């Protein structure tokens, strides 16, 4: 009985998949991402990821690249006893993507209404992301008050902007690419050619967050969404970097002992190799 159900499910799923893909293909072409896996080895010092696609006739494009969700422990400094600066509050900011870049062919304000912007996650100053993220007490996990949450989440967003992990789209169209960070060399402005083909690239920093990145392209004509396409790419450690990184997590005692042994043996070895006395 179960086997029959399972067998029946296969063609059904296949059928669904086919109709779904064709439906998507009608709205906008597939996205091409290269490389699909960004490998972090010993020599990794940042990488460019190229994203390309085709815009439907007469439509504009809005592109969103979002990194994996992360949780970060933050602290707030304040004056204690009216004299000294100390940490007065801590919070864990959860469900905040560690990377978020938006590009478009025209300023997003002229393409989408405020409502649409929020729905697609491309609102000015990434405010939709700020709404999704949550700041909780690091000790018991209870959410902080509304104002405190906004404070912490906004502070983390600003930090990410400084580090080139976030690009509020407004930056490009208003200030020009020169004023913005280096996360998108093309300045986040995507220019489709006459056939509607477009290609853009994003630069991942050397400390790019690891995990799966989502790439979403929305095609817009006359204020209406006429199509969408999405894909993903991965950033992962390989080789020695992967081996050491996972050893530090999974076999911590062994790793700790190994690192210490290496450090002390190195210290002593350099001591023995070193000339006994200044030669005179």
């Amino acid at each position, binding site marked *: 009985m179960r086997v029959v159900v399972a067998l029946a499910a296969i063609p059904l799923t296949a059928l669904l998949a086919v109709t779904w893909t064709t439906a998507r293909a009608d709205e906008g072409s597939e996205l091409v991402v290269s490389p699909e896996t960004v490998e972090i*080895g*010993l*020599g*990794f*010092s940042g990488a460019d990821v190229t994203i390309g696609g085709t815009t439907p006739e007469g439509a504009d494009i809005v592109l969103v690249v979002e990194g994996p969700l992360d949780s*970060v*422990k*933050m*602290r*707030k*400094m*304040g004056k*204690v*006893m009216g*004299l*000294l*600066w*100390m*940490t007065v509050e*801590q919070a864990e900011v959860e469900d905040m993507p560690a990377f978020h870049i938006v590009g478009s062919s025209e300023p997003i304000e002229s393409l989408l209404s405020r409502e649409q912007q929020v729905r697609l996650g491309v609102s000015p100053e990434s405010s939709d992301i700020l709404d999704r993220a949550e700041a909780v007490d*690091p000790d018991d996990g209870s959410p902080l008050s509304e104002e405190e949450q906004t*404070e*912490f989440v906004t*502070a*983390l967003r600003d*930090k990410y902007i400084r580090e080139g992990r976030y690009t509020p789209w407004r930056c490009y169209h208003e200030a020009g690419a020169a004023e913005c960070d280096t996360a998108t060399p093309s300045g986040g402005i995507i220019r489709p050619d006459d056939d509607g083909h477009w290609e853009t690239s994003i630069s991942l920093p*050397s*400390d790019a967050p*690891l995990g799966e990145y989502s790439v979403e392209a929305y095609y817009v004509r006359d204020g209406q969404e006429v199509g969408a396409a999405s894909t993903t790419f991965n950033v992962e*450690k390989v080789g020695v*970097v*992967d*081996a*050491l990184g996972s050893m*530090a*997590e999974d076999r*911590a*005692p062994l*790793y*700790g*002992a*190994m*690192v*210490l042994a*290496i*450090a*002390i043996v*190195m*210290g*002593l070895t*350099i*001591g*023995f190799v*070193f*000339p*006994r*006395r*200044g*030669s*005179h």
Partner: protein
Amino acid sequence: MSSTRPPAIETDELTRDDQALIQEGVAPTLPRGLRVLQPVAQALGLGGVALLAGAIVALVVLVGAAVGTSPLTDVVTVAVYLPVADKSMTVVTVVGAGFAVGILSGMTGVGGGFLMTPLLMMIGVPSTVAVGTDSTQIAGTAASGAQAHSRLGNVDVKLGVTILVGSLIGGTIGVQVVRILSAAGNFDFWVRVIYVLMLGSVGGLMLRESVRTWIRSSRTRAIQTLVDEGFEDLKVKLVEEEKPKEEGTFRRFVTRLPLQTEYKKAGIRVSALFPCGMGLGIGVLAAIMGVGGGFIMVPSMIYVLGMPTHVAVGTDLFQMVFTSSNVAFQQAITNHNVDILLAVLLMVGAAVGAQIGARLSGRLEGHQLRTILGVIVVIVMVMLLFDLLLEPSSLFGVAPVSGGGH
């Protein structure tokens, strides 16, 4: 006052250069303009000078690379991806940071964790990884420094072990104290205030003492010269200068404690309970503050136990190998924030630096070393104070992990 005193010659009239020459007992071998460098050259020896020159060349290349004009840019900008820090960093920067802190550590016995952590964060290492990794590197650097000092006969193993017993117990107690007191609010505030006051007074006292020693020893030498030149009646004054101080009540109390032990290298005879208790106190403090026992440990050995400065430095480095290994291991298993590649790169610079530092310390006189140590303690105090008093550039930041203590 005395009519027999030669009126024309006052010790104060001797210029510092002349005093230096009297002290060295040699004719100047360097041209007058370069004479300032003479003690440095002597302290380092030829090998050291070569290494120093290498370091200067490296610095020049680094600056060149920063400007972007050096042909060596490619070599200098070799970067490596750190598997735990999750970040790529330039090899030269990391090794250079290790070297700088290593010299200081080998010379003064101060672990350098206090300088290393902010230095690492400055060059872009995430703060959590900086805290975890520098204890590992300090264990290695201390091993290198202790080994160099033991060649110079500066390590009293017996005393080191005694202090170690105390500081390991103290560290464990300290962690519990933190847990209990942090519930009481503003605990952090008072710890910092006390620490700043303590560093300030220790550093201040050391500086005052060393300045006095400088003055006294140069006076003594100047008078000695005059005596040699025939002003015989000044001998009385010379004897007066060297009169030993009377023993205080504190020292008398210490000599009455049980378990009196002879520490040969340190040249002291004291109850084993005393250095052990000292280690305990410093261990508690290091655990609470999350920073350096060395800043307090070395001055305590010099002034409280009455050890020679060099032996204090060597013995401190010896015990530091074990205390920072302990901290590093705890960090590795609880916070997973020890980066092996970062530690190895730092070690390369730091171990070489520690060797040079130990040698430098061997060539310096005790009071010169104490001056340097006093200056460092005061600098750290000022850094801490600024940290507390100045408004931070950003009120929000990523929270550092707790821990450290070396």
